[in-house]
């Protein structure tokens, strides 16, 4: 298919990106890896008048460590680069190794993915479970947004007009901690019909002392599963309490229904995958 006409700018610095966004306002769309935007444009479901390509902005790529010890990953870093890097975050490595196919992993970017906030994308669940923060620059300056505040609703984020996600920060996993991602994929698209990410930390006796669990694909947007997290506190590895905690995964949630899976099946998968991902994260928390 052929997209409608658009103007194309290739920016080379963050400042240039911000000024182009300022200049073109609502007409402008940021082009990162392009795996969601370009198909939309080709099908003419999106027809932005201006594309600002941020692929050549060197500052937006790569890894560094910030003052509080968090790992900072530039927004334009690809899934493949993340999977290949030694981030020490198992769930992140895992999700960046299984998303899409090789071509997608070589093009898709962490910043583009989280900004797009597709309800069936894998990465938002992992970013929630790993307590990521988004580094955002925009007309009002620079700010940090915790992942949970960043996701506002179905395909909606806290990004204001003119804003750009420049990096994603992950706090270190810490000792005696582990994380994992489990997914049931749509056999056609490969997106998550249901995906659950978990991070746990164990105390000196091996009991869970801290836990974050997040769901994607099964509801309108990725979100934390607080009832599960609360029920997990103090649980031992291998205990029946883990399944009881996982059984709380559906509490208060409205599950999606489509031709591939109805809400009942998604609710069930959420329970099963939550249990499986918790077991896996706990095994890793040695």
């Amino acid at each position, binding site marked *: 298919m*052929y997209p409608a006409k658009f103007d194309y700018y290739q920016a080379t610095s963050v400042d240039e990106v911000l000024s182009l966004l300022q200049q073109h306002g609502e007409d402008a769309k940021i082009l990162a890896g392009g795996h969601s935007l370009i198909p939309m444009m080709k099908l003419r479901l999106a027809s932005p008048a201006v594309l600002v390509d941020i692929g050549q902005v060197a500052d937006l790529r790569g890894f560094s460590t910030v003052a509080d010890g968090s790992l900072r990953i530039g927004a334009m870093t690809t899934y493949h680069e993340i999977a290949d890097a030694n981030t020490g975050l198992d769930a992140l490595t895992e999700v960046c190794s299984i998303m899409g196919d090789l071509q997608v992993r070589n093009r898709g970017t962490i910043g583009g993915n989280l900004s797009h906030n597709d309800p069936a994308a894998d990465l938002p669940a992992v970013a929630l479970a790993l307590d990521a923060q988004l580094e955002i620059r925009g007309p009002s300056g620079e700010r940090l947004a915790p992942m949970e505040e960043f996701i506002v609703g179905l395909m909606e984020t806290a990004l204001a007009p003119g804003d750009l996600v420049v990096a994603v920060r992950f706090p270190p996993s810490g000792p005696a901690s582990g994380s994992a991602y489990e997914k049931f994929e749509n*056999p056609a698209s490969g997106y998550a019909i249901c995906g659950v990410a978990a991070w746990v930390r164990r105390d000196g006796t091996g009991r869970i002392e801290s836990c974050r669990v997040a769901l994607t694909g099964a509801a309108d947007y990725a979100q934390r599963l607080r009832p599960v997290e609360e029920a997990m506190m103090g649980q031992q590895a291998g205990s029946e309490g883990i399944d009881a905690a996982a059984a709380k995964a559906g509490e208060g949630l409205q599950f999606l229904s489509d031709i*591939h899976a*109805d809400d009942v099946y998604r609710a*069930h998968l959420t329970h099963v995958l939550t249990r499986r991902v918790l077991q896996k994260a706990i095994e890793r928390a040695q």
Partner: protein
Amino acid sequence: MGNYMGESIKRREDPRFIQGKGKYVANLHIPNMAHVAILRSPYAHARIRSINTDAAKALDGVIAVYTGQELIDGGVGKLPCGWNVPDIKVPDRWPLMVDRVRHVGDSVVAVVAESPYIAYDALELIEVDYEPLPVVIDARKTTEPGVPLVHDEIPDNISYAWALGNKDETEQAFASAEHVVELELINQRLIPNAMEPRAAVAQWDAYTEEMTLWTTSQNPHPIRLLLSAFTLGIPEQKLRVISPDVGGGFGSKIFHYPEEVIVPWIAREINRPVKWVCSRSESYLTDSHGRDHVTVARLALKKDGTFTGLHVQTWSNQGAYLSTFAPLIPTALYITLLSGLYKIPAIWGEMWGTLTNTVPVDAYRGAGRPEASYLVERLVDIAAQELGMDPVELRRKNFIPADEFPYQTPVAFLYDSGDYHRLFDKALGMFGYDALRESQKAAREQGRLVGIGVAGCIEASGPAPSQVAGALGAAVGFWESAVIRVHPTGKATVLTGSHSHGQGHETTFAQVVADQLGMDINDVEIVHGDTGRVPFGMGTYGSRSGCVGGSALVRAAEKVRAKAIKIAAHQMEAAEEDIVYDRTTGKLHVKGSPAHAKGFAEIAFAAYTAHNLPAGLEPGLEESAFYDPANFTFPNSCHISQVEIDRETGEVHIQHYTAVDDVGNVINPLVVEGQILGGIVQGIGQALTEAAVYDEAGQLLSGSMMDYAVPKAMLFPMFDVDRTVTPSPHNPLGVKGAGEMGTIAATVAIANAVMDALAPLGIRHLEMPLTASKLWHAIQGASGGNGMQATNETPLGGRDEPGDPANWPERQILSD
């Protein structure tokens, strides 16, 4: 030299494909070329009140905009149906529809512009005033009271009815049956998904009045014939149709499509080269779909398991119009195969071809034969279960014995050859059937859902004796042509009417010719897919290239050898019957004197210098043959699989898969294995993942690769593949078709395994595709579970909630 039959020669065409150097229609660039885009109906059924193209015409870069009426005024004809069963009502189908559209994707307006970008911009400026009409989607509901008529002149939406078999004997068989198995089942609609979407380029020469059309067709000669005689009116001698490299078809590129008329018509109208390339989204809405049967079947048996009768009633969904060969598929390629591998003395098959507001349905890999095999092999499995017999034992009890071939079934076909016991012996041995049945018992005791599925399938390949085809409704013959043009240097150019769009003819056909003439394979060039070079041909479908196209090559080669012998006899001063043509060396000598031989190239040179030829013999060494097969060939197969279902999620894991196929003699085992493996994965796609899903308004919900699940490699185990060989007795190569057997057998081999796994839960039958969601719901329902059941279930086991903000548009967009 020679001895190429049975050799696994690597495909000679692959280097150019692997390096991205194939020449496809979309690769063609002709100076001054314009681009066509088609406006398609967003409604499944609507009256067109008016069309306003003014704004589109005014757009800078738009050359012209045409409606259906303008094409009709300009002389285009209706798209014909090439298979006419008795009393068939063929609905009108124009290249662009005029006052009514009947499926989402139906073509309405054509734009031609300086670039494809402008053409698509112009589509957005066309205003069509549609009056939506009620729709009918489901073949079962077409005749219900109050259901809309897809075509006003066709009552009850029934285009034709067809039946075959011995009705009275079948009724008697059921009257005296000791056991009857009854089953209602659906063979779901599939979408072909050839890797290369359809495309067409046309070039008109206003001075010679010659048209060249490049089109992604499996059969360029029949397309030229239809264009000349029905749709475009350009005489055959002025019309050249070329199908260059074509990236797969699976049947969907057999048919004559609207764009093949629109594109050359516009090229002549504006006197410029014109190109159209289908997008993947358009492919989903316009390539003919496959399958889509609803069937009620009954099998009559004796208590000991002997089959005594089979009665089948099928409602076949033909879509909104009859595609080129649509009526062939559920009649002469379906009901004729209902005997399977078995002696069933009485069979009565009835079917109704129904019209609905969906994309037309036609041949898709297997075409009718997978539907027959699925039905028969599901029935046999259920019969075994009900009689408490092992499914293999029940099959063996009813096999046509090897010494009864040729075997006449009650449904027209005369099976040529086979040895089904030997076939099963080999497959069961490779699979380790008895041991795996034992371990299945142990697994079941642990509560695991492990199933073993056996399928014994038959195919009729290589259509067909032309006379039989004519009697069954064909408007064409089904022979094949070949020309062997030996050049003065002894090299050969071979023209075949078969068409390769993935089958590997450039290799296998060269093997046949080199073998027949004792040549080096590198001295043989295969030409296909061009009406300007190949005299005529019927193309490739129905696994016919080897048995029909290959046999034509043999016949032409025999003529070349005969003439070469005449020349050699004359030059060596011997009698023709004393000349030995040694096909292993390519040399000719007088019996008893091999040392004094003449090479094939020497003879060829002599044929062209013509200095010393026998009196009355014409110079040159070029021979042609038209081969009309004496019968179909009947490949057969035994595929066995083991699956385990994850009780918690409903996912199917394929653990073992064994395939033994009898495709007769084999020209190139590597190519045959590729065909079988490709067929198996396509067949498993139908069993587990693929389905065209329409909502009640006739919108195709599975309209992209985001929602239509072509299976991925991760789904599959390693396949254990081998062959048995019973040569076809009636073609000179002894070959049978190999292109579709994998697809035919795999679907039911997997479906039977899944149902076997669920048997302990009391689940008798589920419709395909057997998705995780559907299986999980079934397991819940069966085991008492939590009582949670899906409502408004879709074929994929999910729910279709059109009013729900289930983010359909967002999810569908990521297809291209």
